[in-house]
């Protein structure tokens, strides 16, 4: 329940900012180009939104069912037990296919660390969720950028979780060697 409350508050905060900026922008458009232009933009964007709705609904339902069908403990155990480059690859795949928002992904990454996953695995997991997550790409990114742009962006982002994971391991080793400790939980 705590999660749900926090999520709602954050949503209102950032939505309020974008709403304020949008209203200000629409007023600026009105003053510069008149009411016709304001209505033309609104009509075009509402059409875009209507086209998005079926995909959004499907994305929400997929997330809800996968979360129920895939036990979290099993996921945590698999990534926590793995290491090496294979561990990074497993974490990357998990991040890409696991649905859910930041409020489920970040606690899960924290749990991985507690269960003995190394920092590289956790970084690879979070990076993959952010950049390769199908849920996010389909619901949020696709409507704005279209399939070609998103496809190339994801292709370019493919190596990034591994690079991030390797960098995190190197940084953690360096910090530990300088006496900074290796406690990351």
């Amino acid at each position, binding site marked *: 329940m705590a999660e749900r409350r*926090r999520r709602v508050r*954050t*949503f209102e*905060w*950032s*939505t309020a*900012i*974008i*709403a304020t*900026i*949008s209203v200000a*922008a*629409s007023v*600026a458009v009105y003053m*510069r180009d008149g009411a016709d*232009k*304001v209505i033309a*933009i*609104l009509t075009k*964007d*509402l059409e*875009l*939104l209507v086209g*998005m709705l*079926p*995909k*959004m609904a*499907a994305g*929400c*339902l*997929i997330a*809800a069912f996968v979360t129920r*069908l895939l036990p979290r403990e099993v996921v945590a155990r698999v990534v926590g037990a793995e290491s090496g480059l294979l561990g990074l690859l497993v974490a990357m795949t998990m991040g890409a296919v696991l649905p859910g928002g930041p*409020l489920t992904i*970040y606690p899960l990454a*924290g749990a991985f660390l507690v269960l003995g996953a190394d920092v590289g695995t956790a*970084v690879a997991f979070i990076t993959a969720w952010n*950049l390769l997550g199908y849920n996010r790409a*389909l619901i*949020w*990114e*696709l409507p*704005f*950028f*279209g*399939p*070609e*742009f998103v*496809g*190339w*962006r994801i292709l*370019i982002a493919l190596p*990034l979780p591994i690079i*991030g994971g390797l960098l*995190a391991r190197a*940084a*953690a080793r360096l910090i530990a060697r300088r006496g900074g400790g290796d*406690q*990351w*939980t």
Partner: protein
Amino acid sequence: MDLAGVISIVIGILLWVLVAVLALMAAMRSKALFREGAFEGSRDFVVLIPRVMIGVVGSGYIAAIMPPDLIATWIGPNSGFLGIFIATVVGAATPGGAVVGFAVGAAALKSGAGAPQVIAYSTAWSLYTIQRLLNWEIHMMAPRFVWLRAAVSFPLPILAGLGALLIGKP
């Protein structure tokens, strides 16, 4: 119909096939599981609609008032590495939330920004927008780990932008 439209419809169909398969799997385990999933998915969808609507409609207006000359100069197709770097920093400074970065990125693209620069921007925003780090992430994991993650992630959007620049796509 253009290729993008066809791909969009195919993806829509695939998504709903996936929904049907998952719903069937849930229903085979138990009726309650199916009901819970269907209810939660529908509720999330309804909650999302106003957020997405504000993002989509807002991005249209923001695109209309963005100064094309300024965008073309700073992060246009000819702005190169410096443009990618600027886009990365601006991405980190953009507020979090589900659609803000995508909305602004799409608006910038419409107003003359280069694709590699926009990729760097949306990658930076996805990975380490400062507001999301401070608002959410820092409360859920050890602060020390969050800063380590942000630090090692810093070069990733620049790599993505350079990658797009190198292959000349999208």
